């Protein structure tokens, strides 16, 4: 009797358990919590245009989403500093997926960090939306089906800027390249554009990342006699390059072309030394009423205008959450399919959609930094010269080396 009773009990328990599992499958959002991890550079050379600003933008996106949709699930956010290092990023990403049950990691501001987080995400089958890093390797040889590259890439900014500078008569180039995957991608992509436009590359020099003292590299660039020195670096390295080039008298004899520059960099260096520079950007705060509205809200928290990365994080998080809301699921494949299916049109992106290689393509803008005399109010830095349509701004799929692209 005792035995039978036990058996009965275990059958009951098993069926209860099975029911429980079934219910879980119906709800489809694990623990009813969607958890977003912002893994970024909090203290290093890229903290100014991502970092705490990206965390703020994510928080804004979450609270706006909650106000708009009143979702049934809870949304949580955690953030950490990846120090732009591969090992720290992998370690953190692994922990977040394993221990913290993070569903999606965003920002990832150095290409090294981006590429290592993607690998962990693929292994754990979770989503990564990169809004900080931009090596074109992310959507080419290194691509996978759980990653979205949202904001820019070295092809878009390198290509756009290099073309514009060659057009203005900057025919001979010398590169100052940050010695890691991002810098080299930027140099390669810009070189292609320069050659296509009829320019010539005289040489290049790689500097360690990050570098405080760029003098010896700048002197090499000066000795090359090139008309244009292409800065294939970012953040503090770009800022230091511009400042030190002025100190060593490299400029204004030779021109600098920053292949990736953010509004925060222009703000730090000042218009005097950056005036006239061409740049390619996905976002400028003072472009439309919508961008101004978002940027003013952001400014109230951060006391700075958002960079394209910071505005991009907002847009990316919103797009992700809307996909979760639409499908009622936080399953990686379901959400990725939904995100790729839905076009993106918000204050940030126009004509945006995510391609099969993970690249979010949208209209980019060619801008020029204003002269000090043209700047009328704080943060009035850019003149938008042209819109680069989505199809032209990014690398065409036919050139992609991503195995996910069916040719």
């Amino acid at each position, binding site marked *: 009797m005792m035995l039978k009773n036990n058996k009965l009990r275990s059958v009951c328990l098993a069926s209860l358990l099975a029911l429980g599992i079934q219910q879980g499958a119906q709800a489809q959002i694990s623990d009813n919590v969607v958890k977003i991890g912002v893994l970024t550079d*909090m*203290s290093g050379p890229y903290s100014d245009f991502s970092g705490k600003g990206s965390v703020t933008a994510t928080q804004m996106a979450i609270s706006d989403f909650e106000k708009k949709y009143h979702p049934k699930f809870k949304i949580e956010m*955690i953030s*950490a*500093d990846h120090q732009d*290092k*591969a*090992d*720290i990023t*992998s*370690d*953190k990403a*692994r*922990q977040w997926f*394993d*221990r913290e049950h993070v569903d999606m990691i965003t920002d990832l501001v150095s*290409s*090294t960090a981006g*590429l*290592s987080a993607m*690998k962990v995400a693929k292994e754990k089958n979770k989503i990564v939306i990169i809004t900080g890093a931009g090596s074109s390797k992310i959507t080419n040889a290194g691509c996978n089906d759980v990653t979205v590259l949202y904001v820019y890439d070295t092809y878009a900014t390198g290509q756009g800027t290099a073309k514009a500078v060659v057009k203005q008569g900057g025919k001979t180039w010398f590169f100052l390249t940050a*010695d*890691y*995957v991002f810098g080299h991608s930027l140099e390669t992509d810009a070189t292609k554009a320069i050659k296509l436009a009829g320019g010539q590359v005289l040489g290049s020099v790689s500097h*360690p*990342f990050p570098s405080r003292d760029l003098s010896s590299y700048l002197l090499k660039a000066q000795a090359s006699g090139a008309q244009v020195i292409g800065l294939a670096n970012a953040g503090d390295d770009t800022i230091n390059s511009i400042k030190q080039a002025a100190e060593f008298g490299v400029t204004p004899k030779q021109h600098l072309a920053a292949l990736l520059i953010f509004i925060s960099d222009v703000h730090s260096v000042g218009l005097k030394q950056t005036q006239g520079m061409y740049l390619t950007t996905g976002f400028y705060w003072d472009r439309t009423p919508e961008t101004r509205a978002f940027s003013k809200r952001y400014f109230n928290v951060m006391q700075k205008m958002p960079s394209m990365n910071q505005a991009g994080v907002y847009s990316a998080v919103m797009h992700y959450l809307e996909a979760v809301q639409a499908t009622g699921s936080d399953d990686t494949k379901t959400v990725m399919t939904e995100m790729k299916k839905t076009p993106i049109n918000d204050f940030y992106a126009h004509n945006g959609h995510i391609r099969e290689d993970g690249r979010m393509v949208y209209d980019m803008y060619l801008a020029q930094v204003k002269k000090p005399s043209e700047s009328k109010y704080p943060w009035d830095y850019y003149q938008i010269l042209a819109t680069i349509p989505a199809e032209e701004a990014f690398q065409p799929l036919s050139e992609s080396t991503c195995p996910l692209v069916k040719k």
Partner: protein
Amino acid sequence: MRIAIYLILLIIGAVLPHFVYPVLLMKILCFAIFACAFNLLLGFSGLLSFGHAAFFGGAAYVSGYLIKNLELPTEVAIIGGVLSAALMGWLVGILAIRRQGIYFAMVTLALAQMVYFICLEAPITGGEDGMQGIPRGSFLGLSLKDDLTLYYVIFTGFILAFLIIYRTIHSPFGQVLKAIRENESRAISLGYDVPKYKLLAFVISAAFAGFAGILKMLVFNFATLTDVHWHMSGDVVLMTIFGGIGTILGPVVGSSIIITLEDQLTDSAGDMVTVIMGVIFVVCVLIFRKGIVGESVALYQRMLGRKNLPQVK
């Protein structure tokens, strides 16, 4: 008493991954091997090497290359990596043991920096990005994909390394090393070929440091510049001193505490972690020089001594 402690530790080690995040435990074990290897040199031979990261990271790169680019099995890659670390240890050792004290440390640091720059510039190491996406593969037919399986493989590796180091310390060879540490001139006058003993100790230590680096590479699937950076050489000094120089269990305790602290603090303290580690180091050197295990043993012996004293009288 001693056996009981080891048995308890063994059981804890076997059960712990079911309660604590296994990846963290594996990291602790890797650093424990690294610190034990380092302790063999600092604690038992009195040689302060400031370049052990070169062996730790260098071996990780070598076996990563063997697995990823040459697609050799994990077992072969581990052996290859350990041999490469031993070879590096031999080369560095030959040059370094000619000098003593601070000069010895500086020579090892200089040579380790050379290894760092080779790893930074060589085409196969991936430079700043590191060597990434090294597959875990399988070991003796066991697939290492699962964290728990990998944990037990690494735990076995740790026990093996620990036993060999333990045996080395308690062998006649280990006794000679201690003699050299206490009084080198006397050891020479007694007819021991001191440079030979020092070199052998250096090679063994380098080989096990390399072994630790390889296991860490297997856990995280990559080898990066962090592993060969001089910070890593500093970290292992801190772990060993904190746990207790010249004690058998000191390095294990030291690395467990330091790695757990780092893990807990990175989120809350951010950049302050290095400052906190520095403060720990200073406190350790000023207040409890023998380290946690060293001081505990001393305390235990004092208590025992007091109890036993009247009886002896």
